[in-house]
């Protein structure tokens, strides 16, 4: 009954609340914050941003000093296209962790998505100026360059991929390219990620999405099917595949092939 513990049923509300409190107590007793962070990262690697956000919150309920939890929350909010909320949350996190490079980069990215490039630039500069080698500030810088329509975005993304050879970074870069309707550039990064981690369903899902944006419906279908083979319960891939089968728009596909996804 764990999945229904937040539902409210009139008079049973108090019981539900007490049950929820007990459940929470058990949860905290059973698992520590590191468990929830790990679970959040796992969900994130599967492309389940909503549940990853929830798990980051659970980790922070147990320990508010986990910077990774705050950064993860902001990143998930950005992935869920809730940019003003992400900006607000990154500001709140920065009050607690002043000058944290990843938080500054996350703020820069959220500001960039909102369109406030001036403040995004300032935040990104501050993030890169911090001590240590972090890949996320370079991802944010690359996105900023992309938003400003400057050619140095490739350099920034290459730098980010160099600093962190995790395939998730490549997928993040691909998602950024897709957000700015640069599917041809996105597919290069995502294919590299697929080569690096062919056994991860999320890579195949992202590749399918990118191919769909390019109008390559056949390839997209194959990628989604591959994703479902690796993870049969991948809801997003199943939904995308159903949509693809339901709406086989030849004209739209041709249009996408000719003029891109935008």
């Amino acid at each position, binding site marked *: 009954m764990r999945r229904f513990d937040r539902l409210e049923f009139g008079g049973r509300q108090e019981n539900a609340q007490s049950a929820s409190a007990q459940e929470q107590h058990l949860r905290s007793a059973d698992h520590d914050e590191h468990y929830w962070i790990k679970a959040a990262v796992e969900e994130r690697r599967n492309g389940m941003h909503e549940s990853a*956000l929830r798990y980051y*919150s659970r980790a*922070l*309920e147990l*320990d*508010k*000093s*986990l*910077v990774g*939890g705050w950064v993860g*929350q*902001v990143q998930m*909010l950005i992935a869920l*296209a*809730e*940019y*003003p*909320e*992400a900006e*607000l*949350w990154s500001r709140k996190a920065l009050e*607690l*962790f*002043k*000058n*944290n490079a990843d938080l500054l980069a996350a703020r820069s990215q959220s500001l960039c998505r*909102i*369109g*406030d*490039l*001036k403040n995004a630039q300032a935040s990104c500069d501050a993030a890169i100026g911090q001590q240590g080698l972090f890949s996320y500030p370079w991802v944010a810088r690359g996105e900023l360059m992309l938003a400003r329509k400057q050619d140095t975005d490739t350099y920034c993304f290459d730098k980010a991929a160099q600093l962190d050879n995790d395939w998730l970074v490549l997928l993040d870069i691909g998602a950024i390219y897709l957000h700015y309707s640069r599917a041809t550039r996105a597919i290069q990064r995502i294919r590299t990620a697929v080569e690096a981690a062919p056994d991860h369903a999320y890579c195949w899902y992202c590749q399918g999405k990118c191919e769909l944006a390019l109008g390559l419906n056949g390839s997209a279908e194959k990628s989604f099917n591959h994703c479902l083979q690796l993870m049969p319960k991948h809801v997003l891939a199943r939904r995308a595949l159903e949509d693809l089968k339901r709406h086989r728009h030849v004209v739209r596909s041709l249009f996408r092939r000719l003029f891109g996804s935008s």
Partner: protein
Amino acid sequence: MQCTNCGFQNMPGSEVCGRCATSLGLATAVMDVHPPRASSTAKLARRLFPIRKDYFRMRDALHVEAVAARIHSATPSLPRPSVLARLVVPGWSHFLLRQRVRGHLFLWGFIACLLLWIPMYGSGWGSVWLGMAFSVHASAALDIVTQNSPLASVRQRIGGSILVALVLGIVVYWPCSLLLGEFVQPHHVQAHMAAFEPGDVILVNRWPSPRRGDVVLYSITYSTTYFPDGHRRLTNVYLGENIDRILAISGDTVQCESGQLIVNGTPSPWLPLNPRPMSGRFTWTVPPFHCLILPSGAPGWPNLSDPNLWQTTGNVALENIVGRAYLRSSPLSRFHVIR
């Protein structure tokens, strides 16, 4: 105590990290850790109407233009004549100087105010919108003039603003108002007349010469009627201005037979704005520099059975005609072309 953010080893009892200023008592602090969420409606609204994004884009573009203008204004001087000449239209000079965002803002702001002014022309709100249009135009001009030579002190700014507004008023708006006033002169109806109510705004064209069938605005003066027995009577039909139709012009022979008005031997297709049954039988010729207008809408419309009264009140001197009334522009609920 080790900082969770940077790993710096702080002294026991410290509240914040000595290196990165992170709160050290954060792990046990009471605060909400659940981020705010956007509803699906809000997300959709943001996607459909990216107002915030547009605002930031415009702000950045204006900033870039301002910086470029500041670079250009290294040596204070007036803009070149081609730029100054384009100040006639707000935003035109900005386009020439490649300040497209400002140009669009000024131009469309001005056009919006003008579009709001046109239907309210002559009314109080019309004046407000015209004033707004003028201020947008003056701001555009001031923006161009001060780009190359920024006005430093408050006195200079006030003086510069007044000077720009004055020059613009004299060079652009005064000739325009003179020209416009000939064709589109607003007239406020003061009293009830014919189909018009007090407060209506009538647009009058002063240019064309009076023709049969034109609805005109004219002024009525005191008129004196001489009777055959020698005594005279002062007739005050309606002192002031009136609006009605010209039925005959100078030289026309007018006859009235059994309520039918005949002009030059043919039944007149025109009727006064507020037609009433005419009685009596008479014939006369409209004198030179006069035209026949029956003040049908005036409250003291005389008894038309008396031919003397007809001639006295109906014969209007051309000099008393203000112009052709062609549109009731205000109130908007009764916006109507006058025919």
